């Protein structure tokens, strides 16, 4: 019966997303504003839907439909998740996200933003009987509240300066607006999981049910970026300090995220860190666009902004696919630790193919959809080197090209690790050996998203132009970008040569099956395979100082060299931020709380003394005023 209600809910969700998609398609090209006839407390709400918002609505629909198809079967495995709680918070989250996307003033934005935060926290806490999940939900809730506090401060400040809540009226080009701009940037960055505020993200995404992580990573984190575009980019921010802060944060985030993704052994955490990396990239795009437009280089600004939006959309698609794929694995294999998986490709072919597509996209490999955004960013950076400008900016561009390529290589290793260890080779546990595709609906959802990824990769040029026109219609200067992706050419060449190679060389040949090369020892056990840890080790060693990477191995036995009895290997990664920054900060709050609690000592004489001393202080204040 419960299952049935779940299906109804998912049908409703589908209906919702389809209807907003249809609505967005019909109204494409127009700019709609709407002010509801009622007040929210004392504030009137303003909604505005332009093409930019519609693009995000399309993304919303794609992600939500997939999740709606995926959810009912996926949720069956969780006895602890209260389905009612899950669906109510999901709907709340979906609706508030839609409204955040179309909100045109700060109050409206903030209200739905907070509802979104609360409902997503409720989603994270779905499986609340686990301690880890509760901890994650609390961390997330704390981070998100701090984010909105900072955002509030920025909004208030802007209101003081401009006397308006409407985003369109906010002009960030005056020096007095630099601090509020900084605050708004910080608030949105916390919410998006930008370094050094990203710590909540892996916790939350790995603790939440995969469907909600897919939604949060695929759509919610993008909304923060959309807000950056809406508020700061369209407000013509030109403070070099803010822009460079954003740029540097973006660079660090991209690198940091991918570095930690590389050394994660939990599939969900790995993907969560890769989300951090992608958000860093988007932030780089936005910061770069801001910088270019403050230098009056409209073309580059436009290119970078298009890159940002395109990457938002594409990342939304492939990241939700990754998370849903993870959900499928979780359902059939029970665990997501890479050390327990292996050999799933044969048992779960659909998931395997879809995950491969997603990983290809996430590595930004052509012709899939991760590529266009990254490519456009490279182009913009390159253009910036070529035009006349400050040497510092050019150097920054060169270094970020360098960084981006390193990040690209790192994400490739991280995702190859995830994919290969989870799907290839032999199963490392009985659960993994017995895994199988459990439900058609889940496979359908995966295939749907995978085909979205493929299609948006193939029609990347169309996407670039439509994003460009959407941006133009949203109040930014219209620029034609001449560069276009050679996607179709690549595709034709690749497919042609691949088919040719296959039929020429491989197709009719008879093959012989034999065991994997085992140096003649025989009986190669699954444990002899490389582990996720050891795969990442050579790369991780290079970044030892950043990761605090420790590799301890202990060998027991009389003849340790030739006949070890027991080998114990342990890898430890310590997040410097967590241990050196956040833990002390938390401890500081705790200590100050405890020391202030000592004032409440229990003795009435001391309490009376407080009254007397307050009197004296007040009298002194009275003299002062």
């Amino acid at each position, binding site marked *: 019966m419960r299952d049935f209600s779940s299906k109804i809910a998912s049908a409703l969700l589908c209906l919702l997303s389809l209807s907003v998609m249809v609505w967005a398609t019909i109204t494409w090209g127009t700019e709609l504003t709407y002010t509801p006839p009622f007040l929210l407390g004392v504030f009137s709400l303003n909604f505005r839907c332009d093409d930019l918002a519609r693009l995000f609505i399309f993304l919303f629909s794609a992600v939500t439909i997939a999740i709606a198809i995926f959810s009912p079967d996926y949720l069956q495995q969780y006895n602890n998740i209260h389905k009612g709680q899950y669906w109510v918070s999901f709907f709340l989250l979906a609706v508030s996200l839609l409204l955040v996307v179309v909100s045109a003033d700060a109050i409206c934005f903030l209200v739905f933003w907070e509802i979104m935060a609360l409902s997503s926290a409720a989603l994270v806490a779905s499986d609340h009987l686990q301690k880890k999940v509760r901890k994650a939900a609390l961390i997330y809730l704390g981070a998100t509240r701090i984010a909105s506090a900072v955002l509030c401060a920025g909004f208030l400040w802007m209101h003081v300066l401009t006397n308006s809540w409407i985003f369109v009226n906010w002009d960030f080009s005056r020096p007095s607006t630099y601090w509020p701009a900084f605050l708004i940037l910080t608030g949105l960055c916390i919410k998006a999981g930008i370094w050094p505020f990203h710590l909540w993200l892996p916790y939350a995404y790995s603790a939440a049910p995969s469907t909600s992580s897919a939604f949060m990573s695929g759509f919610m984190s993008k909304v923060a970026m959309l807000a950056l575009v809406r508020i700061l980019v369209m407000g013509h921010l030109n403070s070099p300090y803010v822009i460079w802060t954003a740029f540097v944060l973006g660079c660090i985030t991209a690198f940091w995220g991918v570095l930690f993704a590389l050394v994660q052994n939990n599939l969900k955490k790995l993907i969560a860190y890769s989300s951090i990396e992608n958000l860093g990239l988007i932030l780089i795009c936005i910061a770069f666009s801001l910088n270019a437009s403050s230098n009056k280089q409209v073309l580059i600004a436009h290119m970078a902004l298009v890159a940002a939006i395109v990457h938002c959309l594409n990342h939304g698609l492939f990241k939700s696919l990754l998370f849903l794929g993870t959900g499928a694995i979780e359902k059939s294999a029970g665990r997501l630790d890479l050390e327990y998986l292996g050999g799933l490709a044969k048992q779960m072919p659909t998931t395997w193919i879809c995950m491969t597509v997603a990983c290809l996209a996430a590595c930004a490999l052509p012709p899939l959809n991760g590529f266009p955004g990254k490519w456009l960013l490279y182009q913009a950076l390159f253009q910036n080197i070529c035009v006349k400008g400050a040497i510092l900016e050019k150097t920054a561009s060169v270094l970020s090209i360098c960084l981006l390529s390193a990040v690209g290589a790192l994400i490739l290793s991280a995702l190859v690790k995830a994919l290969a260890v989870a799907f290839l080779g032999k199963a490392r546990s009985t659960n993994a050996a017995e895994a199988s595709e459990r439900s058609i609906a889940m496979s359908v959802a995966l295939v749907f998203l995978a085909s979205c990824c493929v299609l948006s990769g193939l029609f990347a040029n169309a996407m670039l132009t439509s994003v460009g026109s959407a941006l133009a219609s949203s109040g930014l200067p219209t620029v034609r970008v001449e560069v276009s992706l050679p996607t179709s050419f690549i595709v034709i060449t690749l497919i042609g040569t691949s088919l040719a190679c296959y039929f020429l060389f491989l197709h009719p040949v008879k093959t012989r099956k034999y065991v994997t090369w085992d140096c003649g020892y025989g009986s190669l056990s699954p444990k002899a395979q490389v582990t996720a840890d050891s795969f990442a080790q050579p790369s991780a060693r290079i970044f030892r100082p950043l990761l605090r990477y420790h590799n301890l191995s202990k060998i027991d036995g009389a003849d340790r060299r030739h006949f070890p009895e027991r080998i114990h290997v342990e890898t430890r990664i310590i997040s410097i931020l967590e241990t050196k920054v956040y833990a002390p900060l938390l401890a500081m709050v705790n200590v100050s709380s405890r020391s202030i*609690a*000592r004032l*409440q*000592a*229990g*003795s*009435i*004489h001391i309490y*009376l003394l407080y009254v*007397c001393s307050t009197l004296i202080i007040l009298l002194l204040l009275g003299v002062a005023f």
Partner: protein
Amino acid sequence: MNLSAPELCLLMAALVACLTLGSLHLSVNLGLFAIETVLIALATAFMGGITGDRELYVIALLIFCFKAFTVPLFLSWISDKLMAQRDIGSFLPAPLSMHLCLILFVLSFALAKEIPVSHAAGHSWPGASAGISLLLSGLILMLARRLAISQVVGFLVIENGIYTFALTQTRGMPLMVEMGILLDLLVAVMVAGLLIFKIQKNFEHIDIAQLKDLRD
């Protein structure tokens, strides 16, 4: 320094309050408190004579009946009942606190001089200083003494101080207000008295300093 009769009474009352601090015996404390209140009642009556305000006589009578008579009797009944003759200790040694109080008595003159005085009859700064001094003695009593009854006495002294202040600075509050205040005071003393009984019953002592269970 030319002191009028009410001022003289009030200053004497303030001095008596200082003396209150010197002894740990509850009966002495209560007796001195009664004397102090009688002096204040007298001052009220004198003030009534000076200003010709009939209400003040009524107030003087009320104070005499309730504050100077009923309340000390009630409290001494409690202390007899609970067999608490002596305060079990003071955070400040009794003689020292008395001396401190005397210093504050002098200090309050300095403070009272700062108070603006309108030239209407009855406004007097020595009276104000008596009020301040009483207030401070009451505070010190409350801060220093450990026994519940002493705290109530301290509170009453504070109340006396405030009343003195009102008397000398405003020729007394309106009768209704004054009566209301007195009623509140009486109820407060009654409630406190009841609570003291309960404390004795529950804790088998009335040492307030040991009531430290509720804290963070």
